């Protein structure tokens, strides 16, 4: 049987080269995300903004969105948002906090029920008062911050500190872009969205750890290889797995978007975006960060530098790392490293 391969075999993409493109690109996207968050804002659901959501189904015929919109005026509910979806008999009403504390929220629901109760079934009623919504904001924020701290400590414990910092920067990047995604799509942001964000954080770290794990392994194995080269090699090695896993998760999420129903659609859409961003950041943000943070494959860098001096062909992959300004070696170092190029051409050990 001929098996399907999505990822080409034995790729040799020079990923580290892209960091001069990917960093400004990501920085720009992050800035746009922050700007969107500040100027456009999020479509906060009632969990965080407080207020009421009522899902209606017309007892006969279809829901009259126009009539329902008029309720805001007629019942003095303030701004009312009416949305139809899927089944034409269905509609959701959403209106904000009513002045007058918790009691006023219940009174407003009661007014709506009296008005439309004869023509519609109230399939779902959710009321979140002002104080509860504030608490949900606090616990949501706390959750995201705590998870980042917890994972930072775990990675610090398991890897070198550069890995932990790189992973956290990549995760923050994913988080910002996800927030930007919520802002630009105006998908409702609620407690389920916090679940989506934390899952994206988890997935992003999962991706990052897989790459970092291989970098760590190769760092010990190929001591003679330049840092950038060694990282490139590691990413290429795990690339088939990265593509494979992203695809299976995407397949599951597409099923959720298509069939999971209204309530979890925004969760699933956010997750799809998150998987995409997390895969990108583990390769293009976290790994190059190791170089900026000064992770050194000491011997390898020296070897690569000296080999570059000796090399006749500047196009070889080995030369690439040495041309990097970050990899510059003091001229004195090349003398001592000159004995090693023969070994470094054959980095694989038995």
């Amino acid at each position, binding site marked *: *049987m001929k*098996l*399907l*391969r*999505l990822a080409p075999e034995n790729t040799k993409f020079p990923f580290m080269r892209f960091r001069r493109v990917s960093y400004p690109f990501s920085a720009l996207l992050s800035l746009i995300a922050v700007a969107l968050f500040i100027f456009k804002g999020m479509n906060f659901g009632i969990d965080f903004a407080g207020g009421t959501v009522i*899902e209606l*189904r017309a007892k006969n015929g279809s829901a009259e969105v126009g009539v329902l919109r008029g309720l805001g005026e007629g019942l003095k509910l303030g701004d009312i948002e009416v949305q139809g979806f899927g089944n034409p008999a269905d509609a959701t009403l959403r209106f904000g906090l009513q002045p007058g504390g*918790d009691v006023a*929220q*219940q009174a407003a629901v009661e007014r709506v029920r009296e008005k439309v109760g004869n023509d519609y079934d109230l*399939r*779902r*009623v*959710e*009321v979140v*008062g002002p*104080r509860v919504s504030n608490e*949900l904001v606090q*616990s949501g924020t*706390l*959750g995201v911050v*705590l*998870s980042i701290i917890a*994972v930072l400590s*775990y990675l610090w414990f*398991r890897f070198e500190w550069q890995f932990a910092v790189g992973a956290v920067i990549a995760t923050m990047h994913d988080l910002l872009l996800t927030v930007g995604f919520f802002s630009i799509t105006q998908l409702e942001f609620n*407690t*389920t969205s*916090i*679940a989506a964000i*934390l*899952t994206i954080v*988890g*997935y992003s*770290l*999962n991706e990052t*750890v*897989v790459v970092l*794990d291989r970098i760590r392994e190769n760092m010990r194995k190929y001591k003679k290889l330049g840092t950038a080269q060694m990282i490139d090699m590691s990413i290429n*090695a*795990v690339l*088939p*797995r990265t593509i*494979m*896993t992203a*695809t*299976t*998760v995407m*397949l*599951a*999420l597409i*099923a*959720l978007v*298509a*069939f*999971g*129903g209204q*309530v*979890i659609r925004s*969760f699933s859409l956010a997750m799809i975006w998150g998987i995409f961003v997390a895969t990108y950041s583990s390769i293009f943000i976290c790994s190059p960060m190791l170089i900026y943070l000064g992770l050194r494959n000491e011997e390898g860098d020296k070897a690569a530098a000296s080999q570059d001096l000796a090399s006749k062909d500047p196009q070889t992959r080995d030369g690439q790392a040495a041309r990097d300004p970050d990899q510059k070696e003091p001229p004195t170092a090349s003398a001592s490293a000159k004995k090693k190029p023969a070994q470094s051409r054959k980095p694989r050990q038995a």
Partner: protein
Amino acid sequence: MLRFSTWKFIAIVCMTLAAILVVAPSMMAPAHYEALKQRLPAWLTPPTIVLGLDLQGGSHVMLEVDKADILTTQVKNLREDVRRILREEKVAITGGIGATPRGVQLRVADSADRERILPKLRLLRNGFSARTGGGGDSPLDVEETPDGLIRLTVTDAGLVEKTRRAVDQSIEVIRRRVDALGTREPSIQREGDDRIIVQVPGLQDPEQLKTILGQTAKLEFRLVAEAGQNPADSEELEQQDGTGKLPIEKQVMVQGEDLTDAQPGFDQQRGGEPVVNFRFNIRGAQRFGEVTSKNVDRLFAIVLDNKVISAPRILTPITGGSGQISGRFTVEEANNLSILLRAGALPAKLNIVEERTVGPGLGQDSIDAGKRAAYVGAGLVVVYMLITYGVFGVFANLALFVHIAFIFAGLVLLGSTLTLPGIAGIVLTIGMAVDSNVLIYERIREENHAGRTILASLDAGFKRAFATIVDSNVTMFVAAAILYFLGTGPVRGFAVSLALGILTTIITAYTMTQMMIAIWYHYARPTRLPI
């Protein structure tokens, strides 16, 4: 690699069978499950998966004790206690008892008088706290200024203490009220210092729940004031039917707590109007008899939560200890009122601060949607694994099947609820569960390409991938754990599914796959790697 120990094999097979056995009852049609339950002894009743309120329909209501209401009651009681002490000690004060934001103040000019009543006032603390004389902050501050002003203030500690006690008492009352609705398995829990979460699954009429939760149900029998009485002794109270106000005496003759029973009924003399019949305990009956004997021909008001339900004229003394409340009720109102009276009054006002109600129809729709998404998602992943990894894909899919069985078994055994986000979590872990397989398989390929023998590649693949699997899953698990501790309701369900999925993936995707490949290698003796 090839030496896969027999006991490990047996353990995995047993675990799988056990998981399937645990999950089976939840997958049965309800009728079959009932039939099975009949045949098994009670202690062997198989547990089924608990569906969240968003899936089976029902109401989640969070109530908060109204602290302002508690403070008002406290200050009112404090004022009465102070007045009693002054009367008992025959102490004169200048300017009456004044009000402060959280207590009362009084000016006692004479220093000897002051010395006499201060210890008595300080003793009032005991009435405030369950922990008399114990440590902790004093529930009541008694201050004295040099110019003879005494100030009594309810402290934060005192208010918290009272609130906690009000919550305890309210839970009891609410339990009695909700039980009277006859629903299955309501859950009533304290949340923090001042909140109660009531969760009632499968309600047909969620409005009724709110009606009976939202009322304090303080019932009082008070006389209607007559012309010529001191206006300071009475107050104007609203009538239930909206026909204006009535002057009602402040003195409460008989209280609702003296009721022993209340039942809805019909008054045959008034054309079958719905009424509530009640019966007093001995003290109540005695008091009721006395009052009605002394006040024949006067109007006797039945007051519920400071609203006059009705004010019938006392025609003859009522000494039998039972009576009837009529107030142009509907059948439903009479029914609700009798539930409230039987359960007793709440110690303080409760406000609804959060409500989430899902009708049974929407719940079923969500279950269907979740199922469809899960089938399609699993189907896509299974096919994809198959066409990518061939026979190894079959192993991964078998492991995936057991993985899902383990998650459901975990949910059943933990008694944790399955919510719609929980289903999303399971679908997501289906995608992620195969990640471990992918990690291992890709590693095996790589080792094989590097020139190792098949056996050595398999061995190295499993060994090397393990550290990565652990590291990557720990981070995901941390995220799930934090979600669990900070999330509520449905989101918690998601966290549980996700965490269970991560734990079981280690067993299924790693150990089970290893076992299957070992057996396969043993029998197939492959000459080249099939991936």
